[in-house]
């Protein structure tokens, strides 16, 4: 499993690796779970209060289902760690962050300078997402 390269949280990281959604359903004490692209993030909603870490896997950077999974979880009020793992190009970093991811474990570690630039790229954003940034259309109207 790849290491966490960026983490935007101050609480202690959960040590256990995420179990699959199937195992999670059966194992009532697990606190970390791993979502594959085909898993329905909404299956986790009844259990959010006991989950501390959700890993969302991106086996290929061309499969964007994880972007929606992240927003679904954040919109349901999940505040634990949401970690993107797998094939994570640096150019996706800012968008993943906007969808609610707060830690990143890329298969291939990213160039930290590029990553910083990617995260700082957009001073403003057009639309609301899971990161609480005020969109331009609200800034325009005070």
């Amino acid at each position, binding site marked *: 499993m790849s290491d966490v390269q960026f983490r935007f949280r101050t609480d202690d990281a959960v040590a256990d690796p995420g179990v699959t959604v199937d195992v999670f359903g059966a194992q009532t004490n697990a606190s970390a779970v791993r979502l594959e*692209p085909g898993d*329905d993030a909404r299956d986790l909603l009844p259990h959010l209060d006991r989950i501390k870490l959700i890993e969302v896997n991106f086996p290929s*950077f*061309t*499969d*964007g*289902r994880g*972007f*929606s*999974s992240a*927003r679904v979880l954040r*919109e349901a009020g999940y505040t634990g760690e949401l970690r993107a793992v797998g094939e994570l*190009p640096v*150019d*996706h970093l*800012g*968008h*993943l962050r*906007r*969808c609610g991811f707060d830690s990143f474990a890329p298969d291939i570690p990213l*160039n930290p300078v*590029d990553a910083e*630039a990617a995260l700082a*790229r*957009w*001073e*403003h*954003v*057009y*639309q*609301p*997402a899971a990161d609480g940034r005020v*969109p*331009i*259309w*609200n*800034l*325009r*109207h005070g």
Partner: protein
Amino acid sequence: MYKYDTYDQAMVDARVEEFRDQVKRRLEGHLSEDHFKPLRLQNGLYLQLHAYMLRVAIPYGTLSSAQMRVLGDIADKYDRGYGHFTTRQNIQYNWIQLDQTPDLLAELAKVEMHAIQTSGNCIRNISSDQYAGAAADEIVDPRPYAELLRQWSSFHPEFLVLPRKFKIAVIASETDRAAMKLHDIGIRMVRNAAGEIGAAFYVGGGMGRTPMIAPLVRAFVPLDQLITYAEACLRVYNRYGRRDNKYKARIKILVHELGKDEYTRQVEEEFAHLLTQGIEPPLAELERIKAHFTDPAYDTAAPDTLDRSDPDFALWVDRNCAAHKQPGYMIATISLKPVGGIPGDASGEQMRVMADLGLKYSFDELRVTHAQNIVLPHVRKADLYDLWQQLDAAGLATANLDLIGDIIACPGLDYCSLANARSIPVAQKISERFAAKQADLGELKLKISGCINACGHHHAGHIGILGVDKKGTENYQLLLGGCEGDDTSLGQITGPGFSEDGIVDAIDKATDVYLAHKQGDERLLDTYRRIGMAPFKEAIYE
């Protein structure tokens, strides 16, 4: 016309810098072609047979003169003196060097233009009615809604890695001039019984190898829920659209496989949830945008009569000009389909001429049409003759709007790496063969694609031509009966395909059948619908 404020400008400038950085990483070898490809595609940059091709967005097809002038200058500076206007109201350049693209994009950004999301698996440039704001039959100007959707969809963090590309069109007239139901989402602005404006959503249309006409999934979305509803449509697609097979990844397949009712149910469920999330822009934003699309300062004393004494001019007016909502004005279309020319091509110099004429005669505004022509939306009838003379001098006064010579053609094998056959030479031959006969044939929309991807809309042509590969030689199938307008229909293949010359002869025979059977003022499409395929088939394959 919409003008950027500092926020819009900053977004576009940031994108130029982002792309400059991506190109640098690519050229230095830090970014593999596999990883660069989706990034350049979201900036409209394709790698084609001979060079890179760049597609520049023209949001809802509206351009200022200054923008058109820059497009002409770019054609001269970065391409070989031409630009190609496309069926999605964009412009493409065919001979672009990768290392020059960041500078090219910076020049575009100076006139509030960009290539953001003009290709790739994301929400593409939003298209609209080329007569928006001028048409006599519209209930509102559709462009403010298209602009709101443009902002919402630009860099939308959740929807940049969709299963496949996603195309949205917005119209607000009874007459559909934008092939709205052949889009992933087609939106028609409507008025409900209470007199309020809202949006009807048609979802799951498209062309390509499995053409489908979008079904209506919701007849009325109120204006203060427009973005939320669009977000729900997209989220259901992003979560459940097929990713196992790129030929089945468009939303049309999802809607088809789930069925319209089940897709709609899922969207409504997501919509109900998203309404609790407060993602809708304030209505004040729509009002702010609308203020950019108010009517120009029409000359209310403009005479409503026309001097038709020059017959060539009268012919051009009858063919290429349409009714305007303002008395004393007309909408003039500049055909980019000269006899024997390349459909949709304009030289840098012609673009500058059109820019000047747009400034002089049309309140600094031009439009690109999905039929690859240019529109001057607001011309005083009293100025039409001067305009026509200047167009004529620039080789831009071809009087063939909606005639058989007004061909839509994709780039085909001359430029496109996916092509099975050439499109442009066939278009040129047809244009020449029918130049004399075309007036007698009346409205006849002919559309050519060089492969099954259907970039040339061949399914929606009254006559469609599809290039196929037949044991290594180029072959052309003929389709009849397609239509993109209100009564959208998909063309049917006549039978075995033809050689390049054979297809031109076959069309000649088909048009003879039409002329022999025509009743009243029927178009070929109407005659075909009435008498069916058999008489055409008989004549074509006799």
